[in-house]
């Protein structure tokens, strides 16, 4: 049972890495918290559900469409709000409030358009029957989602460390002002990072019905707390840290569900508070924050 919980935890952890990754990228580059991240995830899930029920599109195809569509939404959204936000006195704090407002708008529009019912996709879409991994039976849909998450994380890593734009992105992460002074088009670099972040949330949403069970318009807040816990446990502004945070989160969630199931919902909250208090810079982090 212990081994089973740990293996399932790693599988879930890969998925949670994907959930947190976009939020972390935006925080790292712009020092703002996108509290609407969970709502973009929800929209990704709704898109996958809609594409499947109307056009019969396979979730993998939907994932491709969602990536393109969400980048196209993310770029103008960046230029619309973020530069103005970053000029304000306390952009980190105000970003919480601004994106909370955006999250409310998204939730409201989705509820008006589609009602508040739960939506899900049949797990057989991602393969029938379990896969046996080290003696643990896991649904194929889980493995599939985890693998897709791992690929997305890998692509973000390659983008950041193997492309020119990625190098510029990392320069902006280190110091926005110095990057600006060196002549980097900080706004463009940030806009691309923002677009990627929204797209990552969307992809995570496409796989959400398989891992989380269903999609509801008001799921955003809970997702946000989870995503924030994952990236704080890892390290803010470090994509590899997100992987570590995601796996720690996934494994502890599965252990809680196995041994203390009725208290499992407490976990993200307690983990988040504990890490913030004990090691606010995250497990891999150097000190980056004034307390």
């Amino acid at each position, binding site marked *: 049972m212990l081994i089973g919980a740990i293996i399932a935890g790693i599988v879930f952890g890969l998925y949670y890495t994907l959930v947190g990754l976009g939020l972390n990228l935006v925080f790292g580059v712009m020092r703002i918290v996108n509290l609407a991240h969970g709502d973009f995830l929800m929209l990704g899930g709704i898109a996958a559900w809609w594409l499947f029920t109307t056009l019969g599109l396979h979730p993998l195809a939907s994932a491709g469409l969602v990536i393109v569509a969400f980048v196209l939404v993310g770029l103008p959204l960046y230029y619309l709000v973020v530069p103005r936000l970053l000029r*304000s006195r306390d952009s*980190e*704090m105000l970003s919480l*409030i601004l994106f909370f407002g955006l*999250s409310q708008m998204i939730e409201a529009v989705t509820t008006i358009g589609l009602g508040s019912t739960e939506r899900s996709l049949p797990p057989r879409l991602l393969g029938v029957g379990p896969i046996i991994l080290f003696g643990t039976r896991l649904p194929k849909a889980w493995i599939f989602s985890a693998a897709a998450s791992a690929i997305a994380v890998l692509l973000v890593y390659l983008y950041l460390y193997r492309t020119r734009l990625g190098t510029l992105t990392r320069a902006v992460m280190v110091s926005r002002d110095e990057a600006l002074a060196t002549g980097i088009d900080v706004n463009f670099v940030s806009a691309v990072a923002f677009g990627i972040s929204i797209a990552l949330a969307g992809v995570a949403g496409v796989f959400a019905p398989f891992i989380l069970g269903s999609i509801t318009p008001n799921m955003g807040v809970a997702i946000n*707390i989870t995503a924030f816990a994952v990236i704080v446990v890892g390290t803010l502004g470090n994509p590899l840290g997100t992987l570590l945070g995601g796996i720690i989160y996934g494994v502890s969630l599965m252990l809680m569900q196995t041994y203390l199931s009725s208290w499992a919902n407490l976990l993200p909250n307690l983990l988040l508070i504990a890490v913030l*208090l004990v090691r606010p810079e995250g497990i891999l982090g150097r000190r980056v924050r004034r307390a």
Partner: protein
Amino acid sequence: MRDTRIRRIVLDTGIAAAVVVAMGVARGVYSNELMLFNFIIFLTLAQGLNIIYGFTGYLPFGYVGFYGAGAYGFALVVMHLHAPAMIGMVAAGVAALVLAVILLPLLRLSGAYFAIASMAAAQAVYEIVANPDLEDITKGPYGVSLADVFAPAFSYYTALAILAATLLLVVWLRNSRFGMSLQAIRDDSISAAMAGVSVVRGRTIAWLLSALIAGLVGGVFAWHISVFYPDTAFDLSVSIFATVFLLFGGATTLCGPLLGVFILYGIYNVIGIAVPQYFQFTYGALIVLLVLFLPNGLVSLLTSRGIRVP
């Protein structure tokens, strides 16, 4: 100089008194008591949040945690000890204060970290209270019923008294040395410390006062409503409403949060209850526009022109 200070205090107190009297009279004139009661709740919560955010710069997204703790403090004492309502109110205050003391280490965090951590803390308390394993104690997710102490008029005026006390507290903070020192800490804690202001003491007092107010409001809510669920007592939108009202009007002032509640909660009561989603959308849009174009609230239209707003 002394005269202006006294004039300011008289003006502030006058505004506070006018609001309290108006809410008291309204109960005799207007029949929808629950709506008026909710107005008092939000007037008080917005000012309680003003004490911690307006004066120290800490914005607890999980402010509702204290409200819920107060509601359950009241409910537990009344349910299990069959205590009278006033003892329940004391328990509500104590419950919120205990939670605030437990959460004191959160004040070491800043900005967004503090906001999110306090939200996680409120969620954690909710998960504990609503846990089906604790049904014998808290009734778990099934909610509590406090019909024994139900007293709509008495609880209404108790809520009004809490509002009055909170408004006076804000008036005092705006015009006292202590309130000034808090604002100095908010603007630049290092300089304030060098000038001899005790930073930790100031923040702690503001935090406890703010939590106490939310706890008492939660207690009186439990008393007035008498049947409620953990989902209502720990509803995150309570924090959010209070935050938006405060920011819309303008923090650190007395009038800002009052205006925020009267205008926005007024609109909510006109259009929000029938079609909550349209309101939610308008609300979200309002928040976005506010942050982008008027980050210091309505009162900043005047204060930025050098006019003092009470």
